[in-house]
């Protein structure tokens, strides 16, 4: 749906329902075949895309022109058919490809935050309330260890006593906003693109490795009040493979691009070798970002099994989007018909 109003604004709404059949995926097969995986047309992926665009021509004159554009989008995808049992990928299985599962859901172990979650881990002869307590970080710990070097969080177990593998997050954002501004004044052009992602999470596996290696700022206890100091054993326990501790909010605001350009137009070029326009620009990309994500880049990801890093937000020393400053000379020739 498109609408224009007040001769300066346009509004556009798009909804798309996509169904991708015969997705090519590298799926596990039984060892008895002599192989580990096979590329198969294994699944059908359904997606919903909502887009809302509001554009405005703020200033329009012979000398100056300023357009802005705001794009809202929300994208969800679900595996609604898989020609086989579900399976997991990345880091021993932090993502699951499973029928009915939202694409991008993170799975792993969880830490108990309420006493009810450890009711099945009370040794005989003890009571739940006496044996466990909740520490000042909100984790359940053994009461007798609190404030000592023995204190450590407790993982939730299932009814059979195995560590619970549960949903610990989702990499899918709640929504994205992209704001662009195009300003031209005489021969000058100025442009910027701001991107905002609300919600969605990234698994910061790199932080786990930094904690394991003792170089994470998390381990620095200097200056903390005595009752907030935790032992390295405590943090070592939190480095358990694939667990919710390393699921981080990936909300960000980024200045993706900013550029300024100067145009030398045809009339200024005096028909020099048939040139229409020469534009000299200075372009900066990814120069600024605001995020609470503790790694380099909340958009970091991994490619695996036919799925790309835009989906699998698993940060294992992935290169961040580079901050670059570059120059550009754009030459346009006059158009001649054949």
């Amino acid at each position, binding site marked *: 749906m498109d609408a224009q109003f007040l001769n300066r604004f346009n509004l556009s709404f798009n909804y798309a329902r996509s169904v991708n059949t015969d997705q090519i995926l590298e799926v*596990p*097969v*039984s*060892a*008895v*075949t*002599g*192989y*580990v995986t096979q590329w198969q047309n294994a699944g059908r992926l359904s997606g919903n895309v909502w887009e809302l665009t509001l554009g405005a021509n703020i200033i329009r004159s012979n000398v100056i022109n300023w357009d802005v554009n705001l794009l809202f989008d929300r994208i969800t995808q679900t595996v609604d058919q898989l020609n*086989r*049992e*579900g*399976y*997991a*990928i*990345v*880091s*021993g*299985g*932090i993502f*699951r490809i499973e029928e009915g599962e939202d694409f991008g859901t993170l799975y792993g172990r969880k830490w108990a935050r309420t006493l009810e979650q450890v009711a099945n881990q009370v040794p005989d002869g003890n009571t739940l309330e006496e044996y466990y307590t909740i520490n000042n970080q909100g984790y359940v710990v053994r009461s007798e260890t609190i404030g000592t070097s023995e204190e450590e969080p407790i993982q939730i177990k299932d009814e059979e006593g*195995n*560590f619970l*593998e549960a949903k610990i997050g989702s990499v899918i954002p709640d929504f994205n906003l992209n704001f662009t501004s195009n300003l031209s004044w005489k021969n000058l052009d100025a442009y910027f693109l701001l991107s905002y992602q609300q919600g969605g999470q990234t698994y910061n596996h790199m932080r786990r490795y930094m*904690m*394991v*290696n*003792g*170089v994470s700022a998390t*381990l620095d206890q200097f200056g903390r009040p005595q009752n907030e100091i935790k*032992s*390295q*054993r405590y*943090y*070592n326990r939190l*480095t358990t*493979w*694939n667990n919710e501790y390393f699921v981080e909010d990936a909300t960000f605001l980024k200045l993706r691009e900013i550029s300024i350009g100067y145009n030398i137009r045809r009339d200024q070029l005096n028909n020099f070798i048939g040139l229409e326009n020469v534009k000299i620009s200075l372009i900066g990309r990814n120069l600024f970002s605001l995020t609470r994500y503790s790694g380099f880049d909340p958009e970091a990801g991994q490619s*695996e099994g036919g799925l790309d890093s835009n989906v699998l937000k698993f940060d294992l020393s992935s290169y961040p989007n580079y901050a670059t400053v570059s120059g550009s000379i754009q030459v346009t020739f006059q158009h001649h*018909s*054949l």
Partner: protein
Amino acid sequence: MKMLHYRFVTLLLIAGGFFASCEGLQDLDVPNYNDPNRNQVFRNSQDFPNLLSGAYSAWWNHTVGPSPQFALLPASETMGSGYGSWGANPFYAIPRESVPNTDGDPVLIPQASWWYGLYQGVPTVNDVVNRIQNEDARVVIDGQDYTSSTLAHGYLLQGILFGHLAMLYDKAFLMDEHTDVTNYGFEYTAYPAIKAYALSRIDQAIAICDTASFTDPVEMMPGVSFTNESLSRFANAMGARILAYAARSAEETQAVDWAKVMNYARNGITEDFLVSLEAGWEGLVINRDAFGYHQLALNWGWVRVHQRLLHMMAPDDPNAVYPWPFGVSSLGPIVSPDQRFDEYFEFNETIPWAGSASSKGYHILTHYSLQRFRDLYDQGVGSVNYYTKNENDYYLAEADLQLNQNIAEAVAIINSTRVDKGGLPPAEVSEPVAELKKKLYYERLVETLMTFPAGSYFDRRRTDVAEFQLYPGTVRQLPVPAQELNLHGTPNYTFGGVGDEI
């Protein structure tokens, strides 16, 4: 006019290209020679020895590669990893934990490597055996009949592939040459039956070797071309190893058929079994990481000899204290009464994980790295000492002690390394059997360290010498990988942690 001319030429070029393309369309339906079917692969029986060589490489690469050895060795406290690579952490964490059995990248999951790696060889071996045994295929190369030797290799491979599955997993899919893979029912067989099948196939291989006379037409492994006699000796040695190493505990070791072990060992190898270090045979984790655990141990400075092993060899030196004391980040050089200590191990001033020991656990710290076999990996050429004559003889000595017979023979075997290489006081025939077992396992842990890389894990798992056993709670067998379980809708399970070791 000029414009019309250009358009005409352009149209002509497009049309020409179209017709030229159509002419080639008939060739699009071409056979894909890179995707042969079973009949094509197994049609030429002359290829069988090379196909079996490929199966040997599947077995070899995964049993010398980094996984699960990288997890099992720290679990056995003979070598350390001090890191989480290849899923090692849960195997040696203190207190011991259940090992995660998760779906995902099999390269990262210790229980996946042998499972997928060993099964890589099974279909080929079964097909070759089937073609010879049930379809009367003859292997004739340059006018000479190699059918017996090929069948002997086929049986031996069935034995060692399933023998290693029986060593490590609680159950597996038992498949032989009669199995219809396309309609397979995916029924699991518990490891005792897998072991029995493996040994029966090894016995069949030995029976052929002991009646036929042959020399292999090709090298089955780099630098290894068997005769019927050497194949029989190798098969016997593998029989002894599988029978002994399949035991999960001291109790199961007591129940081993030691007379059978003795028979295997008496007919086993009489010299070290060596395999050349060559490209493609360096070790794998499924289909990645082309290097062996040996290379990691020798080239990666942070793979170290475990403090528990150092303590065993220098029990009176305070620098060999075990467990490593909490809060201490460095100890001095160790003086051992065993002459092999400085020959096999090397002191390093720095400890790779000392700075972060408190988060990893002080139990991983050690100053010593492996020195033995270093030349091979420094130079990149030579032979891997995969199965030493000493190891074979130790099975014989152990059988003597378990059966309480031929004690003098057992003592002589112990002293052949204890005294001759270690310079330690000799074991005496008059000593109690329990004391001789202790000396024998000491020799095993020193002399077979890093020959068959996972060997010291299996030794600690099975030994009935209390002081040499696994740390309490250490996983004693691995579950079928979750990836396989999930394919068949089988409930997930795992092992490890006190009370759940097996």
